């Protein structure tokens, strides 16, 4: 179905800017509490993972933006 936010395959196939950027925003904000927990608990593993997820969100922006 067109405009389905969860059809990642179609979003990439069509390089749909709106849905791609929406995913970049969703990934960034879902990652926020995770990364925040990492810095508050000073857990370097969580911080590294959180930064990798942030980089994935950035990747979405760079690809679709």
């Amino acid at each position, binding site marked *: 179905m067109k405009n389905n936010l969860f059809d990642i395959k179609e979003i990439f196939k069509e390089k749909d800017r*709106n849905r791609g950027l929406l995913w970049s925003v969703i990934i960034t904000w879902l990652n926020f509490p995770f990364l925040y927990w990492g810095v508050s608990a000073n857990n370097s593993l969580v911080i590294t993972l959180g930064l990798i997820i942030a980089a994935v969100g*950035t990747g979405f922006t760079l690809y679709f*933006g």
Partner: protein
Amino acid sequence: MEFELNFFYWFLSFIPIVAVLTLIMAFSWSGGKSGAFSWFIAAVIGYLFFGANLKLLAVASLKGLWTTIFILYIIWGAMALYNIVSKIDGFEVIARTFTGLTGNTKVLQLLVISWGFVSLLQGVAGFGTPVAVAAPLLVGLGFSPVIATSSALLGRAWAVTFGSLGSSYAALLKMTNLDPSGLAFWSSIFLTIVCIVTGLSISYLYNGKEGLKKGAPAALAIAISMGFTLIITANFVLPYIASLVAGLVGMGVGTLVLPKTKWYNNNPVKKSVNKNKMSFHSAFAPYYTLLILAFGIYLTPLKSMLSKLEIGLSFPRTETALGIVNEATASYSPISILTTPGTLVFLSVVISIIYFIKKGLWKKHYGKEVVGSLIKQAIPSTVTVMTMSMMAVVMMETGMTAFLAKGTAEIASSVFPGVSPFIGILGSFMTGSNTSSNIVFAAFQKDVAVFLGINSLIIASLQTTGGAIGTIISPMNVALGTGVTKIVGKEGEIIKKTIIYVIIMGLSVGIPALFLIYYLGF
């Protein structure tokens, strides 16, 4: 040796900003894409050369994101408010009413629509909306597309900082942490100077010396009334609605007072022909609601009662290997949930929709359509604000902004107040937004002022004033104007026509600032 080391770090600190500039201007990347890339570059440089660890980069990025919540709340609210009025064709009614009142004096019509009406729209919506609404309307009234687009771009600039319900001003506050009343004071003074230059510029742009002669009385009357209102509202009521109130006053003077004066009363005043059954007051109801809520909360004891509910995040102390320390904070950039401007705007949206339903103006499917267009319009600016903010805070917390400021202070030193507005202009030229210009450059400008030992409130206010002026020639805004007036490809002509006014506006605030700082000792 020390100079070489400093120069090296100064040069490195410039790279993320040069990256934004190059990617947007030379490669036509969007603000969000350029911001994302530059955030990554800033983090890599911070890690490799400034001794930042992963924790510092994570904390800085989180702080950057947290800062955007306050700004995004306003942006999404302002866009929602614009969309509900647009959905019921309210702008058609508002514009037709105002146009009918100005009679047939073309220069007055141009000033009222491209300046007064645009300032009013900028007060509530922004993000290209004023140009998108006013420029086609002017073409419909018989103005050439180039004049229509250029005038609308010129007319909105002065209202940008306190427009969009103050999102650029909010960004200025968040990035500088300076006294809000001091920033409101100096910004409103400098923007009033720009306002006066704007009216005269539009008159001259329309028809050279003849246009200036015919338009000068209206330009001065509207400029003085809007500027005075801006100063009063920003300093004694609420900065977030200052452009909105000033725009309303400007429209009132342009449509109700000036057509009756000796300069403009030789043309019969047309009665508004309203094909739409909706009244002006119904179309304007969301803005009345917002004004009532803003005045009702901010000018009464309700504000202090409701402001108690604050949310701010605590962040740990971080330090780079070069010794740059960011102290731990218990409540970083707190937000008063109930009194923040975004809440007032969303409350106005809800009340207005209920009112429209009662009046039979709102159809069931409108809600879904408004949400759809809101997401489509707001996501690109959301991504831009998020990525630029993360980049700016990473630069600050790794020490890059401080290095940049120190180097620039050494180079520009005694003429810096004159250069300051042009840095703001550069910021919005490359990002298309006063808010983004403030996010990228406000902290840097404040740091330069601190290094030079000059008034940082004046310098930060010059930054936002320059940021507002720069929106006139930003390729993104110009492209929006040429798109809606169907003259795509004439962007260069628009920029050539308006750049001289941009320089004049920059000098009109930069020179008085030099005088204020170095001769009057402010």
